[in-house]
């Protein structure tokens, strides 16, 4: 430990940047975008089509929104040393609720509240299992993960049909619409991000989550209500997944419980981890989580435009993610800093 601080003083800001946890994810994102420029010459082009901004860069942000929304909630849950595997199923349930209530003829604004409410209820369920009954998070949320898509199908069967399609100006406005050239969903994501950020950093919730994730029994003895804080994290995660459910369901104009948001929990967890958090809990990096979600989507988009055969997609994605995570590890950052300091001498 002591030789690190010595290095720091002798190496100065350069070394500090290399060691900072935010540096490498941002570098990785830039590298992916630069490589894209070589793959596709007009990659950076942004035009106005149908009254909105249109281009690959916009697409990456646009498509990253659901993952980012889920990842924001996931960051809080992981902060408590937990995990929520059920987010994909929550999205499926929200989709089914939306389609069901639209066919029942409810006001669309009320339907939005229903959908978010369904997300919150799912979060409450997870929270009760984890914080109330003390079931391990991975098992507790597995229950809803496995059953949630079935619940979605069941809701759909209430009014017939397995993939009922619908139209909703309000919800589709939120998902695929635009305000002053900018896709509405970016505003939704920004609002949710800001809301959650204010919630955890302008109250003591963030500190308490980090305390509980860092050492639950210490936090409890210090007077933090560890159970309640954990419960709250799952509820917020459910709400975030609910928002993602609204965006995704409105996007495809149908409720598709079986396949919607498949494996989104993995992407969300990955985004949180790329953002520098540890699955061992104790820290929340909200901003870097968004960068993580953007990296994942930038990667997906680049593979789509690269013309690479689909068989290679997952392999390429895995290699790049592995590389980013390696850069993100403390040991690797230390090693890189050491190499640089040797070169400088």
């Amino acid at each position, binding site marked *: 430990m002591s030789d690190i601080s010595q290095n720091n003083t002798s190496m100065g800001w350069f070394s500090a940047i290399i060691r900072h946890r935010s540096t490498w994810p941002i570098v990785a994102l830039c590298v992916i975008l630069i490589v894209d420029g070589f793959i*596709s010459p007009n990659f950076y082009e942004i035009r106005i089509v149908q009254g909105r901004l249109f281009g690959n860069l916009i697409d990456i942000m646009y498509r990253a929104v659901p993952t980012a929304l889920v990842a924001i909630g996931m960051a809080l849950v992981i902060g408590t040393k937990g995990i929520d595997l059920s987010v994909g199923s929550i999205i499926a349930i929200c989709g089914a609720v939306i389609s069901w209530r639209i066919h029942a003829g409810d006001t669309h604004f009320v339907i939005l509240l229903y959908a978010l409410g369904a997300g919150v209820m799912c979060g409450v369920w997870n929270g009760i299992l984890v914080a109330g009954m003390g079931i391990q998070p991975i098992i507790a949320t597995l229950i809803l993960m496995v059953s949630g898509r079935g619940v979605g199908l069941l809701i759909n069967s209430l009014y017939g049909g397995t993939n009922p399609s619908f139209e909703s100006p309000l919800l589709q406005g939120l998902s695929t619409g635009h305000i002053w050239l900018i896709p509405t969903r970016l505003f939704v994501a920004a609002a949710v991000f800001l809301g959650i950020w204010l919630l955890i950093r302008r109250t003591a919730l963030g500190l308490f989550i980090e305390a509980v994730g860092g050492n639950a029994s210490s936090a409890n003895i210090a007077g933090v209500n560890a159970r309640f804080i954990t419960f709250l994290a799952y509820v917020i995660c459910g709400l975030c997944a609910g928002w993602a459910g609204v965006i995704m369901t409105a996007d495809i104009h149908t409720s598709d419980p079986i396949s919607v948001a498949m494996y989104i929990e993995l992407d969300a967890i990955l985004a949180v981890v790329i953002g520098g958090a540890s699955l061992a809990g104790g820290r929340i990096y909200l901003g870097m989580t968004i960068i993580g979600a953007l990296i994942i989507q930038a990667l997906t988009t680049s593979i789509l435009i690269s013309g690479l055969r689909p068989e290679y997609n997952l392999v390429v994605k895995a290699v790049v993610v592995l590389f980013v995570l390696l850069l993100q590890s403390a040991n690797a950052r230390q090693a890189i800093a050491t190499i640089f300091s040797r070169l400088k001498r």
Partner: protein
Amino acid sequence: MKVKTILLGAAVASGLFAASVSAQTIGFSQVGSEGDWRPAFSADMQSTAEEMGIELKFANAQGRQEDQLRAVRAFIAQQVDAIIIAPVVVTGWDQVLQEAKDAGIPVFLADRDVEVDDPSLFVTRISADFNLEGRLAAAWLAAESRGGCNIVELQGTVGSAPAIERNSGFMAVIDQFPAMEIVATQSGEFTTEGGKRVMEAFIKSTDNLDGICAVFAHNDNMQLGAIQAMKEAGLNPGQDVLMISVDYVPAIITAIEAGEANASVELRSAIGQFIYPVVLEYLANPTELEKWIVIPSDLHTAH
């Protein structure tokens, strides 16, 4: 390659057999009830049997091969006249099929194939042909575009049998036309969301589908996603670009009626009318059949 026979006019023939053959007992072991297609297939098998005066013993294996083996052994014990199996998996069939053969009960396969050492263990497989669906789509496209077309393809889940076969069937036909080419292909994982996501990227990488004359999607769900992506980008699917896909689900029928999609190859679920006549004819007159009898695929268009 197995020899395939396209059974044409089977539907017509079915009427004749239903009248002429006394009530037969047939055991049918179904895979399970996943997705949309399979429950529809099960329902059709049951209702068609009733119409044709067949006594059908139906067993749902819930996706488990051991349940399926148990069901087949039960059929053998009940001395049914014939057994139809829609296999859960490809391997592990030799023994139970041998038992059926020893009991003198002919076995027919529906839908998926099996791998056995002795091909005489089953009479024939009666199913649709994913490869044929791909060829049919390509043939329609070749005719519509007069043999010259740049195509983007939305593949199904990488490595799945329908994705592999629909792609290779499609390729086999367009290879005959020098001016037809797939310029971009990606997997949309058979979902609307996937189709939309991939199409958005294609729109950018091909400069608003400049020079693209057709979109071939391995299923309708992906095509519906692609249609949404194109509409959001200000393009006119079905008019600027030809849209062809496979499945013929209700939503694509609506899209075809609205002029946003052009054609869809039907993956039939009502196939009892193709399967039972083959079985009944064999029972009346046991002769060596081809090992694969293909159920014809229909292509549906707006006109």
